[in-house]
């Protein structure tokens, strides 16, 4: 059975992920960016991850840009990545559907590392997402499969190691990857 993940665990994991990303960039480039923050969260607010977004309000090490659309988030991510900044996109499955053209045009065709955390709002605790009564939940993984986007489920606290793994994978394959947040964070 899936479990909710504490916001603090996700935030600590993101910080570690960004620290590692900055270390790698520093080893790779002539003049790595020097900033007081660790990285960026591009958010189109998601009910499913609202406790994380609320906790991020108090975080100085992670800068949050609230975007009006997921299309914007994709293009902002490209600019931040070109500038050497670590980034995570926190969106909802409905936003994934809404932004398919920028997923294709920016992340895929542009070969821009793009790491999504996608909330599966209305995902039923006792049912596999592929069997969900809700089309928003049911179609998320098949859509990612259609575009050959590697993805994994965050089904509980034991799965947070997938965050740095899929973040690194987006950098290695120069394209999009995603983790799907199964239950509402707490």
């Amino acid at each position, binding site marked *: 059975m899936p479990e909710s993940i504490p916001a603090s665990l996700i935030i600590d994991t993101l910080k570690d992920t960004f620290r590692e990303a900055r270390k790698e*960039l520093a080893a*790779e*480039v*002539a*003049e*790595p*960016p020097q900033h007081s923050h660790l990285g*960026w969260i591009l958010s189109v607010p998601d009910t499913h991850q609202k406790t994380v977004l609320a906790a991020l309000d108090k975080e100085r090490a992670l*800068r949050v*840009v*609230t*975007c*009006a*659309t997921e*299309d*914007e*988030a*994709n*293009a*902002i*991510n*490209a*600019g*931040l*990545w*070109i*500038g*050497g*900044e670590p980034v995570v996109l926190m969106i909802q499955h409905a936003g994934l559907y809404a932004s398919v*053209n*920028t997923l294709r*045009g*920016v992340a895929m*065709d*542009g*070969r*821009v590392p793009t790491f999504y955390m996608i909330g599966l709002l209305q995902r039923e605790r006792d049912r596999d997402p592929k069997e969900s009564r809700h089309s928003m939940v049911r179609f998320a993984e098949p859509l990612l499969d259609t575009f050959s986007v590697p993805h994994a489920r965050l089904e509980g606290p034991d799965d947070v190691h997938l965050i740095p793994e899929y973040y690194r994978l987006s950098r290695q394959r120069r394209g999009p990857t995603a983790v799907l947040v199964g239950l509402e964070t707490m």
Partner: protein
Amino acid sequence: MTIKPEDILRAIATARGDAICVPTMTTSPAWRTLAPDDLSIGCVGFMGGASSLGLGLALSMPKRRVIVFDGDGSLLMQLGSLATIAGARARNLTHLLFKNGVYHTSGSQEIPGGLSVDFVQMAQGAGYRKAYAVSDFEDFKRRLPSMLTDEGPLFVELHTGLADKTPMTDRGGQPFHQQVESLYQKLHKAG
């Protein structure tokens, strides 16, 4: 009165210094000629994304000016980006809107609202630090230095005629992924 877009681009190419430029749609062919192989990246394949791409660049490099060459039809596709840019308070972002009232690239169909759409009011309402319109080339040249140095986000609605070329009449230029790679390399692997 309208301004020739090529005249604007020529003046920017001379004055921009090390600014990163983000052209889109009908500014792209002329910009390729005026500023080949430099710190530019065109919004290709995701119409409407130039302003957001520029915002990401501006946030990542706060000491460098980023200039977006947007179109009115393009901006309408992601109009919410005005609020996102204003909310992110990108002080080094100059957002130039080449306003001609039509979708020039696809055959000059009128944009919704045509030339009556007031983007300056929209930018002001969204919270840009400064927003104004320019419809005379001499006025543009006079204001250009401050467009490149004033604290942003700064929005300038440029009343222009149609460009000589469009991405459909003058195909070419690098695909987006090559531009991404090229700019990344220039910014991080120089020397």
